[in-house]
């Protein structure tokens, strides 16, 4: 029975000791420890969340980069295609203009040639005309040296004239 009879002394000292222990540990040990643990847990939590967010951000950036790259490639192709088209166009235009210019020049040359020929022909005609006139003058001079022949021609011409 002695074993289960609490001693007043031990009850008293236990109460006092436990109260002091609870006070000191509560104020100087449990509070800072629990706060530190909580804080660390929170920081780990936020760090994990941030890592997750960073991973997402990274994935997003990679996707974006890829999309940009793809777009850039498409654009480059487009630009190249356009350039090729423009090149072809320029070449064809240049050919065309060269052609027309050639034609034009040939036409002009022909016209010039024709003109020159016409001028030359007119000159030749004039010379032929003056030559033939000279020849005719000389022939006539020769034929009408004799007076009688002149008279005969006048007579003939008079005969032909009918009044």
């Amino acid at each position, binding site marked *: 029975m*002695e*074993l*289960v*009879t*609490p*001693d*007043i*002394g*031990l*009850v*008293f*000292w*236990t*109460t006092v*000791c*436990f109260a*002091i*222990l*609870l006070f*000191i*540990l*509560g104020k*100087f*040990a*449990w*509070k*800072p*420890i*629990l706060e*530190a*643990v909580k*804080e*660390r847990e929170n*920081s780990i939590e936020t760090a994990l969340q941030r890592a997750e967010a960073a991973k997402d951000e990274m994935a997003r950036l990679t996707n974006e980069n890829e999309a940009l790259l793809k777009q850039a490639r498409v654009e480059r192709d487009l630009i190249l295609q356009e350039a090729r088209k423009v090149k072809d166009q320029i070449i064809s235009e240049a050919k065309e203009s060269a052609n027309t210019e050639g034609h034009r020049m040939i036409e002009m040359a022909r016209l010039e040639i024709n003109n020159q020929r016409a001028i030359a022909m007119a000159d030749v005609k004039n010379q032929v005309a003056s030559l033939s006139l000279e020849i005719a003058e000389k022939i006539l001079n020769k034929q009408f040296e004799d007076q009688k022949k002149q008279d005969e021609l006048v007579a003939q011409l008079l005969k032909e004239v009918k009044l």
Partner: protein
Amino acid sequence: MSIPAFASAQKDTTNTGDKDFDPTPVIMEHIGDSHSWPFVFPLVAEKPIPLPVILYTDKGMEVFSSSKITPEGTIYAGTYYSYKLEEKKVKIVDAAGKVDENATVYDFSITRNVVSMFMTIAVLLIVFLSVSSTYKKRAGKAPKGLQSFLEPLILFVRDDIAIPNLGIKYVRFMPLLLTIFFFILINNLFGMIPFFPGGFNLTGNIAVTLVLSMIILFVVNLNGNKHYWKHIFMPNPWWLFPIMIPVEIVSIFSKPIALMIRLFANITAGHIVILSLISLIFIFGTLWISPVSIVFVVFMDMIELLVAFLQAYIFTLLSALFIGMAVEEHHHEVI
């Protein structure tokens, strides 16, 4: 488990010759409290270290060394009365040396258990204040050293005892639960050491478990909310009042009493079993039985190690459960 007890026991048996060894006083001496700390210089001598005796009588306080009243039966004439030890209790004696049964004396002595409690509390304070300062110094970093050994225990109390039973209100009760857990644990463990700084039986003392359970009783009932009191005084349906109200009132007290008995009985029983096994050597009076005793004692020590943690855990868990029941914001569903 105290060597001193056995040293004296052995001396007694050798002195009394053929008389059979009686383990009961040895065991009782260890399980109980005493006014001096038995200390053994191995193979040389056994010397009880005197401790202060503090008495409160109807005339006033008396303080003297326990060496004045040891060995048991020595009469010391104090300022107000004369005192002597009878069955380890300080009694007032009259001039003829007879115990005066009418005189009352309150014994607030610093006994062996009180000294051991001072010691374990000093250890707790040193350990946890240093760990706490480590937390401040290494804020936000991974735990290290002693801190990393104790943090799992602290987190265990928080995550497996407090939060499941108390919910979001756990923060307020954490200091109490942690203090109770580590106080019981360290005293259980120190009690298992057979010599200084152990060799006592504090958590197996009914006075200590009484105080711990009374603290729980007060905390539970002072924090009880209206649901808790309604549950006790207005059970459903109304015609159960005459039965339920007394039952509920008994249950208020039976819960802490169960806590008190459980811790006391478990630790004391463990100590008794181990001491009994060692006593076998003396009962048989031969050294040849000692291997058997040692094997069993080692086995029991391992179980006691488990029990030391288990009882600290159970006491804290049930405390948290009772507090949780008192502060729970539940809504009664009418069935």
